[in-house]
């Protein structure tokens, strides 16, 4: 036994019997003041002391010592060890600290027993002694803890609390309902597609005649998963729509979501119910769609269910991808290194991305050629969202701006009822079909930003942050399966939910710098054309920032795309300053620009390839330098004014 363990210590998790001498534990032993910082309405439900947090992807012989707590919002590890100063150049989230995980982000919990691990499911019995825990997150982060030095029972207490609170069985148990912080909405006049005028504006913007706004789904009588306002062919009466809807899965008849100025419309619909054998209703509705085209052209019907992955395919592929991107330890990392590309291929993740882009390019080309495109899929709530949004990004530059992108997600995902709650598993239900369909979309968008780096106003950091934020149970945006559920929560007389939008970035990121990093310095509005993305496999890359950022040794110190980004920001600042000078304003003179540049160059050595998500950065230097070197919002504004849409 002892032989086996001493062996496994080096190569694998030897939580129980590791050699104390070689264990490099940092942080001192005073555990007096290690309480997690709590939000209003947050409370601690369990706590374990003298817990070790292992360094990620290591041989698990290095760790930080601290206190681990479970609250009704997060799993929080607080260490005595001073945060190294370089950490502060990474993204500063005021809701979650570096070693915090929101409970909604927890995907799998493993008990570590010697060199084995056992998955613990909610409801399963927790063993009396828990010596080690491994937490695997939905965003691929991994944390491994040891309770070797903790008082007896602390490991078990934490595990129990975690299994109970990380997998709530009712929506009302999510922290959003308990969060008591006052909310000042900064996005009052944003477009949510909850009201008629939002759709009206969109119809007018795309100059689509032939379509009208219907209130047939008032109070969600027609379909519980669709918005109350629907855009349908002018020739369809409300009663016809209601009648037809009953024949479709989820009562989702064809509805308009976007159109080109030439009159080509993008329409999405569900499959007919399996009990319906004749297709009359579908054909009738498609005939209406045809008539709403200016030249009465036959629409192109794309069966997304046939060629695109199902949510189950997405989940299977994601789990394989995550195995590759979240290795348990150093040894596994090195084993994967041997045939990484083959394994990546067999995860089929890149194939899925390629398939979604391919289908979207086909649809976009058809629309560009003047044809109406009808997207049809099982429930019309998964791949329809992916393809409909991608088609619009490809064709219409408006959606490629920050505001446009937000609006697009609101329109195609939120109000059209992508079941975020089920897909992301916010509530633990056995019938949940978990699948990161939204991540497939974000990844496709990332591929576009790589192929067209000046066409998008937002950066990959924005996309990665958006994915992270989908697992924070404070924001309502990605918390519900449909608009109806949201409305019910808001109007619940017992505990009405305050809606906090994820798009209100100030709620998470107090540093303007972090939000400034969402804006692409290369963005130019002159890029107004249709994009022609490549979708064949060799052109699809792995999104390293999003998937590999938790593996510190993969960070390129002082290199990677953030270096280019920083350089371009400097360049943009310089140009803005010169333009300011020429406009005769009392803007910053030459010297200040030069100062900024010098500072930036200095700071650049700090910025690694996973910036701003890296926690290991480069050599520590004064971090404040970096902040100053970023063109704050002002500099960016002056430039984006020229680039602003409209």
């Amino acid at each position, binding site marked *: 036994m002892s032989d086996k363990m001493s062996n496994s210590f080096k190569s694998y998790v030897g939580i129980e019997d590791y050699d104390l001498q070689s264990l490099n534990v940092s942080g001192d032993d005073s555990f007096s003041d290690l309480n997690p910082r709590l939000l209003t309405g947050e409370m601690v439900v369990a706590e374990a002391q003298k817990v070790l947090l292992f360094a990620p992807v290591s041989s698990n012989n290095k760790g930080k010592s601290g206190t681990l707590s479970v609250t009704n919002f997060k799993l929080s590890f607080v260490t005595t060890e001073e945060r190294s100063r370089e950490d502060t150049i990474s993204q500063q989230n005021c809701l979650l600290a570096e070693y915090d995980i929101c409970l909604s982000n927890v995907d799998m919990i493993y008990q570590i027993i010697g060199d084995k691990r056992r998955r613990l499911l909610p409801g399963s019995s927790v063993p009396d002694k828990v010596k080690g825990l491994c937490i695997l997150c939905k965003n691929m982060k991994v944390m491994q803890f040891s309770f070797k030095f903790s008082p007896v029972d602390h490991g078990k207490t934490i595990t129990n609390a975690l299994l109970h609170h990380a997998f709530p069985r009712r929506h009302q148990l999510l922290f959003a309902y308990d969060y008591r912080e006052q909310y000042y909405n900064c996005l009052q006049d944003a477009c949510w597609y909850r009201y008629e005028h939002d759709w009206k504006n969109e119809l007018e913007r795309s100059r689509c005649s032939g379509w009208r706004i219907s209130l047939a789904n008032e109070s969600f009588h027609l379909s519980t998963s669709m918005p109350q306002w629907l855009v349908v062919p002018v020739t369809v009466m409300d009663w016809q729509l209601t009648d037809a809807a009953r024949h479709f899965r989820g009562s989702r008849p064809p509805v308009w979501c976007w159109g080109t100025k030439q009159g080509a419309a993008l329409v999405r619909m569900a499959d007919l119910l399996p009990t319906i054998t004749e297709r009359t209703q579908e054909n009738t509705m498609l005939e209406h769609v045809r008539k709403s085209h200016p030249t009465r052209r036959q629409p192109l019907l794309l069966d997304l269910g046939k060629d695109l992955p199902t949510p189950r395919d997405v989940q299977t592929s994601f789990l394989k991808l995550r195995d590759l991107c979240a290795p348990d330890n150093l040894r596994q990392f090195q084993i994967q290194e041997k045939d990484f*590309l083959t394994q990546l291929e067999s995860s089929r993740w890149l194939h899925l991305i390629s398939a979604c882009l391919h289908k979207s390019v086909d649809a976009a080309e058809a629309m560009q050629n003047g044809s109406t495109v009808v997207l049809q899929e099982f429930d019309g709530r998964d791949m329809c969202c992916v393809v409909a949004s991608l088609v619009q990004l490809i064709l219409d530059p408006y959606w490629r701006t920050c505001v446009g992108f937000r609006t697009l997600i609101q329109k195609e995902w939120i109000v059209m009822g992508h079941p975020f709650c089920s897909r992301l598993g916010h509530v633990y239900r056995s019938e949940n079909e978990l699948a990161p369909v939204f991540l497939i979309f974000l990844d496709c968008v990332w591929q576009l930003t790589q192929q067209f780096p*000046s066409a998008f106003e937002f950066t990959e950091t924005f996309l990665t942050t958006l994915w992270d934020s989908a697992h924070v149970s404070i924001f309502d945006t990605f918390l519900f399966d449909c608009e109806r559920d949201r409305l019910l929560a808001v109007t619940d007389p017992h505990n009405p939910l305050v809606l906090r939008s994820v798009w209100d970035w100030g709620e998470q990121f107090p540093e303007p710098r972090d939000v400034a990093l969402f804006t692409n310095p290369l963005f130019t509005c002159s890029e107004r054309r249709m994009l022609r993305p490549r979708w064949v*496999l*060799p052109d699809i890359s792995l999104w390293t920032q999003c998937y590999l950022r938790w593996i510190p040794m993969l960070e390129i110190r002082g*290199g990677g795309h953030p*270096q280019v980004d920083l*350089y371009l920001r400097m360049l943009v600042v310089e140009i803005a300053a010169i*333009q300011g000078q*020429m406009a005769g304003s009392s803007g910053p003179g030459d010297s200040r620009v030069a100062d900024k540049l010098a500072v930036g160059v*200095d700071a650049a050595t700090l910025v690694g390839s996973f910036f701003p998500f890296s926690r290991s950065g480069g050599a520590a230097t004064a971090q404040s330098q970096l902040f100053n070197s970023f063109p704050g919002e002002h500099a960016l504004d002056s430039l984006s004014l020229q680039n602003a849409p409209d």
Partner: protein
Amino acid sequence: MDRKSASDLLNVENSHSKHASTDSLASDSKSSSLNSKLGQESVSSSKGSPSKSYCSSSSTSTENVVSTLESKVKGKQVNVTESGPPSRPDDPPLLPGEKVQGMAREVTYLCPYSGPARGTLSVTNYKLYFRSMDRETPYVVDVPLGVVSRIEKVGGASSRGENSYGIEVFCKDMRNLRFAHKQENHSRRNVFEKLQQFAFPLSHKLPLFAFEYTESFSENGWTVHEPIAELKRMGVPNDMWKISKLNESHEVCDSYPSVWAVPAAATDEDLRAVAQFRSRGRVPVLSWIHQESQATISRCSQPLVGVSGKRSTADERYIQLIMDANAQSHKLFIMDARPSANAIANKAKGGGYESEDAYQNAELVFLDIHNIHVMRESLRKLKELCFPNIEESRWLSGLESTFWLKHIKCILAGAVRIVDKVENHKTSVLVHCSDGWDRTAQLTALAMLMLDPYYRTIRGFEVLIEKEWLSFGHKFQQRIGHGDDHHSDADRSPVFLQFIDCVWQITQQYPNAFEFNDYFLITILDHLYSCRFGTFLFNSERERVAESVKQRTVSLWSFTNSTIDAYRNPLYWAGGMQQQVLVPVASMRHIKLWKGHYCRWNPSMRSQDPICQRTRELLVLKDQLERQVEECRRELQARVARNVATPPRLASPTHS
């Protein structure tokens, strides 16, 4: 408004190259010479990098597009070509010293991507040139004969079926070309013979084209690397290191440079004695020295240990001198590039490796890099995968099964280990493999590139190649097989290509640390084979001196440095303070296939580099704005000066 004028400027450029790209897409989409890789680049530019549409000196009308950014530098060169304009449209454009040797009409080029095209095939003493007028725009294939590795006849007198009778040309640059001849024209024999003669001039007792090429350039590339000046740049000679001219006539080691930097305490006798104990006399000599810590990188060949485990006190003492020259560390790492099994096997042939018993305080590390034969085989598989078409669904696993990227990773990882020892542990490193001219050159050159920002400039990189590869006797002649027809020669191997690939990998990880772009790297590789310049000819400095290469041929660096703007990386952070030491991550999670090089003949695989394009636009804009500001300032000063000179009289009433 100012912005507008700048973008107008850029639009002009855009529209130009768009024009070009559509043309060349229709016509010469894949083909082309070295330089019209450019033509090819311009195709990709329809997707966004027009300014990469550098035209070649052998420009056809379709390729003859000069982007605004490069027009200045290119102009001269184009003129040279125009000085001898072709009389008929079928005639190939010629370089100075180039002559047409044969021509065949009604030949069909079988393009694997765009299908057959009928036209005229010419052979010169430099290139094969095919031109088709079949389509709306002329279609050109322009390939220097230096890249040809073998030529075969396809089909015989009994061949039936369209395009089944002709010639197939196998190239060293990841492509093959097929031409079909009409049997009744009897044109094949002549073309075949001319191709054989001029693709393999050495096998036919003809000179390499470099010795006939007479173009002159504004810069003389032969002066780029001055060995003593380069050593001085690194602070040598100093207390611990001296410059030795013991090998001035290449007599101690015929594959080494004439100038060495060696430990100051080593006598000539020591050096001669050490040479006796090192394979082919390749003594440990300084490659690079850390300015502050004095930690060094030295290189050599394997010790002649043999099965009996011979020792040489001279060699042991000399290694100690190298260690002692670095006061910061009492250790020395000997990095043996080979897998340990190969190193052991070499004992049977009289070679081997340093035993740690004999070399006190030295630690031996095997870097596990395979030999030239393994690398050649790997590239052969890669070519099979990439040309002409790729099997898309099994792309990644297919790529992995070639092991090409794994070899690249291994070389990079080795160089990173050297960098780590030198930079972080302030310890000197001695690098060798068997002979010390293949893997050793890869490792020392890469480590130097990572350690020293100078080598990341265009001229610095040229120096690096001249020094670590050319002067230290990487056998370019043997590895490439310039001008000879032994295509299956076991000495051929893509060692230098691997080095350039590794450099490209580092540029991908550190996109703003290099002054040059990947077009510079591709240009170097193109002329590695082309035999247009003397740079990569012969196996050693001694041979090049004997053949008066500097006097009789043009240096590749004369060509590149005369058009240097084309090779600049717009993302280069010339602030001077950027990351001094680069430590790329050698993981399969980061190593990528250089599609822009290996898949460049496939029009559907052309990589785009839109970031560089947009950055270039911004730089142009900034440049223009700065000039405007400068003008304004000068005007303002002039006005102030006038005012001071003639004080306005009306303003004279005083308030005193």
